[in-house]
């Protein structure tokens, strides 16, 4: 199962990306670039940000553009994980349609994604 802290981190970052796009009325791509541009060079923070954007950006763009919230994005990218018999952990109010339907739809959107080929462990 995904580490709880990883899930919290993912939901936090995706929320900020989504809200930056909303505040600046920009695309998700532009919002991610903006966020990275705000980070200092020190400790490779900016470089790491661009690397993460290059790796997960395309999937995040597709999912947020389909109006998925941070919970759905992070479960789809498997940073959050609902184990068998475990409760569904979510920060935002649940989507109107059934969670399973939403998640399945999201998974279809990123089905061919190269990032999901590798187990989330990395």
């Amino acid at each position, binding site marked *: 199962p995904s580490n709880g802290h990883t899930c919290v981190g993912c939901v936090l970052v995706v*929320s*900020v990306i989504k809200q*930056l796009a*909303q*505040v600046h009325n920009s695309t998700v791509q532009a919002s991610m670039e903006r*966020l990275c541009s*705000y980070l200092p060079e020190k*400790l490779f923070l900016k470089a790491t940000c661009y690397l993460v954007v290059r790796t997960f950006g395309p999937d995040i763009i597709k999912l947020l553009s389909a109006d998925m919230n941070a919970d759905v994005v992070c479960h789809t990218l498997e940073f959050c994980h609902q184990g068998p018999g475990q409760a569904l952990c979510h*920060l935002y109010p649940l989507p109107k349609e059934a969670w399973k339907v939403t998640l399945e739809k999201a998974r279809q959107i990123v089905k061919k994604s190269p990032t999901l080929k590798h187990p989330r462990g990395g």
Partner: protein
Amino acid sequence: ADICVLPFLAKICQKIKRTITNSVPFRDVDSDNYSVSPTLRGYHWRGRDCNDSDEMAYPGRRPDRWDEHRDSNCNGIWGVDPKDGIPYEKKFCEGSEPRGIVLLGDSAGAHFHIPPEWITASQMSLKSFFNLPTALTDELDWPQLSGATGFLNATSGIKENSIYLHLRKRNRCNHRDYQNISKNGASSQNLETFIERYVEEVVLEAGIPTHCPTFTFLNFTVQCDPSGGRGFGMCMHLCCNLVRSFLFLLTNRGIDPVPKMTTPEQFYSKVMETLKYLNARLPKGSHVILYGLPDGTFLWDHLHSRYHPLGQLNGDVTYGQLYAFLSCLQVSPCHGWMTANETLRTLTSQRAAQLSNTLKKIATSQKFTSFRLYYVDFDFQEIIRKWQKRGGQPWQLLEPVDGFHPNEVALLLLADNLWDKVRLQWPQVLGKENPFNAQIEQVFGDQGGH
């Protein structure tokens, strides 16, 4: 997999490991546990070294031959008064009972803080993350602004001082004598290792004739140990030949839902174990203050329906939702009070009160050869009342991003409150007011700053 097996990395890996496990500075040329750089357990955490190429010069040590020729204890006072040939350290500090402060604590003691501007899109700009590198290399802690060892001016503008700044004001000979040896996630489970390492590292050092008085207090105030453990607080005040220790047993919030809740019996034995450990190591003349638990229901009461910074833009995330999310993921720092379950909150508060009574019982019934025992209530409600009298709101005393830790204002109000209690009830603990403070300032100015 383990990059540290590479021969050319072995040494630096070992250094990093020592820094992390022993909470000692990463950059420390003379290996005296004091540093000239701020982060990575540097002078944000412990008094700044005034000579990083001399292992016998560091803050808090007993002055070497009254510092005639050099500042061996880094308090900025050294040399000889040309008028009478008396060393300044002797003239201004001898007999003034100088002492420093050491804190062994958890995230609250180290002042864990995630700036809300890091996650507030509407206010985000190039300036928002300027402090991120410093914060990361300080483990997201800000000990330089903490209630125990803070030495910088409060960013909140509040006038209250940290315990260290109070000590320094009382006796300028205490300059730079602070150590914040706290760790995020410290709890009773790893407390003993923590104390042992600390006691070996610092207290024994205090035992040998170089270390000067240190007022050390250990403060695991809010650690909710998911494994049902407990936090403790301990305070030791070490005098050159006498060691006085205050044990702030800030028991914890390591309260797990009912089955794993810390029982008074478990707590009693853990506390006695720790007290006996210290009794065997601290020189005579110590003092121990057992510090009760607050009633953490104020977290839910004052925050649950307020919007979290992530929820302020669209009005869609409250602290209640955040608490539920963290609990669901089993990463909640305080499941017993950060919950919608009123029964659990009540149960947790009842148990907290029982644990506080356990401390009272120990303080009134137990005698130790090395220290005297006192008990002080941890009365957060008193802090809230004081803050409200100044027109403040209770929610302004808590960290906005994690909705749990006391923020800088709360930590400084707590420190001030504690200082007043100790000063009024046990003034001998804090040493005397130094009558030479003004002369020290006149001759040495800011004593080299921090």
